[in-house]
């Protein structure tokens, strides 16, 4: 069924279709409509599970971890400061191997106080042991949340699905809502056994020796590596049933390109227009859409860029003291290639600042001409 939906509502529909049994959350701009829509659904009896209203995001995640360990499918949504407050519990979720799915609506972090889109909130949770997927639009957000449950519950690792605050969360787009029976066919009921047994009580998060600890960490690392085929299969299966799918990257006209623009999230849509315009003017430009941050699609990126001489990366985030985070990740994935491309980083659209197609064309051309520095990011601001 095709409907006009804001991205936040598309996420809520996915949660409903996934028959999530437990939602714990706290409202925060620009995520609040997800919370409100799920509340409406619960009130109308359309939500399979229950909502728990917590006093903070830290508690919301603690509740999700506990609920997940009792053997139910769980969801939460947050943004910005909320995700930052949750940070400690993100480690508890992955360490306890709780297959929680969370939607983070990217928003800048204070200070100064502001509301626009910025990926720094979720990118700075990179090392908490969660899988991270960045979506281009509302449709992808809906589809990715459903896929995320399949991936999380197969790997016993939590998944974060990120959408851009206001651009994706609030823009109304036509969205194809899958039929419930199709989702049921794709996503079986939650089958992870409860880890709490009242007849034989056990304690989790207990103290272990250094050797034991390292063993658990290595096991988690190996299992994160093991999600690569799971992600691929999950998407292939989804595509088979729904007729839509998304790779961990998407390479558009990269083959034979002189320059490739790497972008992520909602900005990818604009980048598609800009690259098409460049190609129409005879510039051999391609596009690399980055979707997965963790696990990082190392092999896929190397394959897509193996014969490309120049790469421009747009980051809607900034890591002070280095540069854009996607740019760093990309560079490190390319390390050791026999003829790696030169990579120029651009910082643009921080806090949802406007990034127009002509600004993107400028960045691509400056990377192509070699004018853009390679050792530090170029800040691209209007006016």
């Amino acid at each position, binding site marked *: 069924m095709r409907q006009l939906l804001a991205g936040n509502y598309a996420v809520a529909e996915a949660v409903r279709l996934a028959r999530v049994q437990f939602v714990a959350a706290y409202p925060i701009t620009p995520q609040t409509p997800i919370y409100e829509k799920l509340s409406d659904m619960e009130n109308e009896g359309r939500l399979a599970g229950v909502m728990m209203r917590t006093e903070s995001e830290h508690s919301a995640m603690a509740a999700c971890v506990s609920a997940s360990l009792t053997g139910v499918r769980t969801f939460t949504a947050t943004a910005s400061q909320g995700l930052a407050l949750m940070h400690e519990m993100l480690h508890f979720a992955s360490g306890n191997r709780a297959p929680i799915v969370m939607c983070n609506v990217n928003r800048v972090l204070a200070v100064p106080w502001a509301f626009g889109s910025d990926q720094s909130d979720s990118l700075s949770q990179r090392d908490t042991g969660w899988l991270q997927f960045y979506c281009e639009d509302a449709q992808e957000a809906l589809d990715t949340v459903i896929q995320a449950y399949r991936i999380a519950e197969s790997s*016993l690792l939590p998944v974060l699905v990120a959408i851009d605050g206001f651009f994706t969360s609030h823009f109304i787009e036509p969205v194809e809502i899958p039929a419930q029976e199709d989702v049921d066919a794709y996503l079986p009921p939650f089958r992870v056994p409860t880890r709490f047994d009242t007849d034989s009580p056990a304690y989790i*998060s*207990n103290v272990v020796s250094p050797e034991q600890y390292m063993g658990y960490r290595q096991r988690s690392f190996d299992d994160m590596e093991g999600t690569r085929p799971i992600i691929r299969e999950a998407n292939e*299966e989804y595509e088979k049933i729904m007729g839509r799918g998304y790779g961990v990257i998407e390479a558009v006209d990269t083959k034979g390109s002189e320059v490739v623009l790497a972008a992520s999230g909602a900005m990818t849509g604009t980048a598609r227009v800009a690259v098409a315009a460049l190609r129409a003017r005879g510039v051999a430009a391609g596009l690399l859409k980055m979707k997965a941050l963790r696990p990082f699609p190392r092999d896929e990126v190397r394959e897509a860029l193996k014969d490309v001489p120049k790469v421009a990366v747009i980051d809607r985030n900034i890591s002070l003291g280095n540069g854009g985070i996607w740019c760093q990740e990309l560079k490190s994935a390319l390390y050791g290639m026999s003829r790696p491309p030169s990579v120029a980083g651009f910082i643009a659209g921080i806090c949802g600042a406007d990034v127009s197609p002509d600004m993107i064309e400028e960045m691509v051309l400056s990377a192509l001409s070699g004018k853009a520095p390679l050792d530090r990011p170029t800040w691209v601001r209007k006016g």
Partner: protein
Amino acid sequence: MARRDITIEDIEPMIPFSRGSTEIFLTGQWSARKPGWVEKTSPCRSACPVGNDIARAFAAASKGRIDEALAIFREENPLPGVCGRVCYHPCEASCNRKDMDEAINIRGFERYLSDHGRVAAGPVRPVRKEKIAVVGSGPAGLSAAYHLARLGFRVTIFEALPEAGGMLMYGIPEYRLPKGVLRKEIGHLRKLGVEIRTGTRVVPEGAGLPSFSSVRRDYQAVFIAVGSHRGALLGVEGEGSSGVRECIAFLRAVALGEKVRVGRRVAVIGGGNTAIDCARTARRLGGNRVTIVYRRSRSEMPALAEDVAAVEAEGIGMELLAAPARIIVKAGRVAGLECVRMRLGAPDGTGRPAPVPVPGSEFVLPVDTVIAAVGQAPEADFLASSGVATTHRGMIEASDTGATGIPGVFAGGDAAGGRAFVADAIGRGKMGALSILCFLEGRDVGAELERLRIGSGPSFSFQRLLEAGRRGADLSDIVTYDRLNTICIPFAKRNKNPERLVSAKPPTTFEEAVKGLPPDRMEAEVSRCFKCGTCTGCDLCFLLCPDVSIVKAKEGGYDVRTDYCKGCGMCASACPRQVIGMGGGR
């Protein structure tokens, strides 16, 4: 895609499980600072000459236990009904609450307890064989007798006047301290086994019995607290004429119910509480122009500011910076008081500015009665032949612990030159009781006093002496305002005792001028009190401890499980009363 379901066996290698107790991990091992639950001492108690455990009494009252609160006062003070009315309340001047809004009405609380609480009087220890004599039944004598009786001694009080109470009975007027209140409290002493022989003056040697030597022979120790019942003279011309009265005799005559008459225009000389009492009494006896004549200014008056205010409210005038020079007598009767204007000079021996006469400034107050309230001295003829050393002003020379030069003879109160306030006299009576205990048991009174002393203040705790085994407060640690957590305490107005309505009509009766607080306002005042240093069992520490390391102790209060406490200090910073404080290691 056919997938195998995940089983619990799949999960166990992924995340650790423990089925044992986590208590084996002593998570408090790596911190060096630990909190400790120790009750401490409130500044009001430290300031109280009687040493009343005020905060603990407020804590008991906050649970509705009025009788217990009264019993807490009575651990240190036999006369809460008296002090609850006439004390100069240094406690309130030290109250921590004054740094937030207004001091607690502690005196009103003490009065409320004595008016509403039930007293279970009875000896605290087994009766001992030693007999103690107390000479004088004023606040010092009553206090010494009370504490000695509670220690198990057999106590006899010798009182020269027809009724016990000393200045409380014969000096303080009825409108400030109703006789019934005093009689009730003296009655509790009698129930405790104290024998009071009224109308029995100790007389000089050879003048009959009981003489001082006969008392010394019959009793193992003597406490002299004869007060100062002899009023000082003005030392001016015309003092012997009709219409001139001396304050002590004047107040005593009124107390005895004698027909006392004053003229319509009365001058009261002096600036102390006795002058105030005389002026207000004269007003009630029909003096419609009563004037207090004082040689310094208002701020130097020894009387309490609130009593000076009461004087004004009753329409009594004040002639400040004036001293009597001569009483003008016509036909043997007072016809006027010639005064000389004074100015304030350099500080004198008391630290106050010395009044200096202004030459040629004489003026006449047209009065027909003059009441002199300019000082008092002991009135006890037996002292001269007793061997007890006295000063040139007739005061007994006693040490800080009340010892005279004669072994077994101790002294306190006004007669021994103590501060002329009821609370101080009660405090000196306690001191005498402790000194006598130590004398009879051969203990070092100085060491005992240090053990029992409250802060660096004037008093010590008899409760500590009698209940040595109890988990008691640290008497040396006074909780100051900056150590409290008042964040959850709302601002609230002090609940004052209602006063007799000031109207155009002058007071004509001796009805009590200040009333007791009604129960609802007392309850509000009880909740205003911080209970500094006293645990009320509010559970803040228990509830806020992130490591479940504060547990409730069986005997009340809380214990700290230092094995698990990480020393974060939340309990200590949350404790409203500084009962929990951070200390050293485990």
